[in-house]
């Protein structure tokens, strides 16, 4: 009969319409309150009818892998030796893998020796150009650049606000651990430490290996104190803070220092010889 197909279709629309009221009654109109607890009623799998999220009053949470404009990781401020230090070593891989080429890095140089140091002097990301592909985070060998979850970056003037400099980009490691705990944990397992790779290396050697940064005058605090100072990272603590582990090692600090000084002296001698040869 003509019109049965039509009627069948309209029944479906009617059902959708009625369902939303049934849902309202079932939850006693709690669906419409702004309470956080009721968000699940509106957004759960069983929800029928209207499912609008009232942005910006409510927001849908983003998953861990969500990627928006990158940020740089700096060491947490409570870190005993490297507080506030960039994880970035300015190796330039992020700038190379960036498809729209929106990353500019100025590699830091040691003013005394003129040699590059593993720390960026400046770091810019033009967020107007960034296409949020996540390559920089994916290919960074030091886990130093990560994709952020903060997608509310609108501003009134793109010329002043849309090129993020290092200060704007830097966020502490603890922030990354808070927005992406599972991934931070996986990365920690791959890296072997909660800290920066270099920090772990230093710790294994028993001291700072950073050639550029002025060596901290004070030695790291004794092991138990370090452990206390470092808040227990969630979700697992099986990786003990690396400096502590090193401090427990048998090698006294001074001996290693001497060896290192010796190596350095030899290297400088070699360099001087080479320079003399070239000059002559």
């Amino acid at each position, binding site marked *: 009969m003509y019109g049965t197909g039509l009627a069948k279709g309209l029944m479906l629309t009617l059902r959708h319409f009625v369902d939303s009221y049934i849902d309202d009654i079932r939850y006693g109109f709690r669906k419409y309150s702004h309470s956080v607890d009721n968000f699940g009623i509106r957004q759960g799998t069983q929800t029928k009818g209207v499912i609008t999220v009232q942005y910006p009053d409510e927001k849908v949470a*983003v998953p861990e*892998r969500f990627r928006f404009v990158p940020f740089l990781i700096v060491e947490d401020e409570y870190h005993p030796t490297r507080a506030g230090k960039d994880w970035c070593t300015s190796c330039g*891989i992020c700038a190379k893998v*960036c498809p729209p*080429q929106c990353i500019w890095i100025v590699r830091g140089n040691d003013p005394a020796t003129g040699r590059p140091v593993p720390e960026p002097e400046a770091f810019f990301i033009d967020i107007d150009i960034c296409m*949020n592909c996540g*390559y920089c985070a994916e290919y960074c060998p030091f886990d130093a650049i990560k994709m952020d979850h903060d997608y509310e970056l609108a501003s009134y003037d793109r010329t002043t606000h849309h090129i993020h400099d290092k200060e704007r980009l830097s966020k502490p490691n603890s922030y990354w651990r808070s927005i992406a705990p599972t991934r931070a944990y996986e990365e920690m397992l791959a890296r072997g430490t909660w800290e920066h790779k270099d920090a772990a290396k230093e710790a294994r050697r028993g001291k700072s290996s950073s050639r550029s940064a002025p060596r901290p005058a004070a030695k790291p605090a004794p092991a138990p104190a370090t452990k206390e100072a470092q808040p227990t990272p969630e979700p697992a603590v099986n990786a003990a803070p690396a400096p502590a582990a090193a401090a427990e090692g048998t090698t006294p600090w001074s001996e290693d220092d001497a060896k290192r000084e010796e190596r350095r002296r030899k290297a400088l001698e070699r360099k001087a010889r080479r320079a003399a040869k070239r000059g002559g």
Partner: protein
Amino acid sequence: MPTAAPAAPLTSTTIDGAIDHLQATYPKAVSADNREGYGGIIVESAQLLDVARFIRDELGFDYLSSATAVDYLGAGDHMEMVYHAYRSSGGGALVFKAQTERDQAEIPSLVSVWRGADFQEREAWDLYGIHFPGHPNLKRILMWEGFHGHPMRKDWREAYYEEEQKPFDSRWPGGHVHRAEEKNVFGKNVSYPREIDLSRLMDTSESAVYQSLGLGVDVERVMDKDGFETNELVVNMGPHHPSTHGVFRMVLTVDGETVTSLEPVMGYLHRNHEKIGERNTYLHNIPFTDRLDYISSMGNNHGYVLAVEQLLSLGRRYNQPTYRCEVLRVLMVELSRIVNHLWAIGFWLNDIGAFFTPVLYFIQERERILDFFEAVAGSRMMCNYMRFGGLFGDLPERIKSVSNLTNDRARDYNTIQFLTEMVSERIPRTIDELEQLLTQNEILIERSVGVGVLGAADAINYSAAGPLLRGSGVPYDIRRADPYSIYDELDFDVAVEDAGDMYARYRVRVKELRESVRILRQLLPRLEATKGQSIWADGKPGAYAPRVPLGEAYGRVENGKGELGYYIVSAGGKSGTSNPWRYHVRAPSFINLTPMGIMSQGYKVADIVGILGSIDIVLGETDR
């Protein structure tokens, strides 16, 4: 493959057999392409038409998938047209090429053999400046007629030109930030061809708007043959028109309400994706492919990585993707096919008048799938998920993690549980609802049955692809005709309908939705079985600058909208970089518009909107 018996008809010989036969028939005109990493044959351009006819009629390669140009500046200094012809009964490609000088580039048009070459040759003229004698309407297609030069030529440089290839040196280690437009202010770098009359830009009269189209109709005054003024007139639709699915423009000549001819005008979203692709490294291109058909970015990724993997497999250090990787790829691609078809059907219904009720029901389901994409790949639409020889990452444990759940505990599902629920309940339920809502709907049937008819022979000849081709009764689905990934071990049917009208295309899409669900059901146990297996063959992610050996590759996939192909030429170590020499996208949305003209003739203006919707185009891909 077993070699064909000598008695076998030519239309079923192997590719090699066909090439041998061609060389025997045209010993002077046809020679094998012996360059390292290349295949197929090179045809003398003087004999190209004869050879092409022979290929189509005698050898049975009736479907011209792709025709594109390559500029070998500095590597032989010639232009080359590359054609990929297939049999509509399935099998691999017969690749043939014709070469010409760079200046005075000229190659005979193949439009008389395959109508599907029409837009592709116009594109080659537009972007490469190759002239095609015999082409009925050789005009620029993506650029406007006042554009100076042919931008895909290797010696053409864009306004914001910085360097030949990425990564640019200015970014590191001395990266001082600048904005391209500050260095190169618009207006200072624009040139026009000498013959272009710029005063026309100020002319707002009706005739100027249509001047470049060659419609043969004086817009302001149309006389019939007896000298009476008739009511035939030109109607402009788009580029800013809600029914054109973006910035697409159609210029219709109508006689009363009936359309007598239709001229598609495109390029309003053109950004020279291919030029950008040639500046990019191989890896850079993956997120750029997301932006082509932004409804199904997973499929775009897949085609591209398949093409580059073909090239990589020529080298020594290459590992096949693992089985789990293939399963995940197919999973993502089939989900995005579902998204694509839900979207296509929904907006097609909008076009024919079922305004937004059905499409919102479908979008609700699509959102769930996008939630899954977001959890796995990090983005809802610009997924950027596939890598050469692997993937961005395996499935996460949960859709949302313990973080960020300030107000969203409701969506914290176990991923596999979520997926299983989607595949076994939600998606089939949505498809059932869709059918209940529409398939028997009398209004829909009256609007769409017998409208926008494209016959099987035309569909093949016009290189139509995807649901457009299968809706015309040609059971051609690349997943079956030329299987890739793990499709040959999956059990599914090729959806096909014979009528060739809008309703048939709708039916094909619904059937494909069901087939996709069927594939997804087979993937779930495979996901379970491969759990814990690495997605990378050697257990660690691939390099960011893979060494791609010399050669050419054509990777194609059955995307939601049709055959998506990537033709890639690698200059190998010669250029010392990891940038493709040629990067071409065979865009189904673009080529499916070739038969738009003949499909629309004789229908009403209101039907045109529906016909366009039933082709299912997306302008990101059409205009590239």
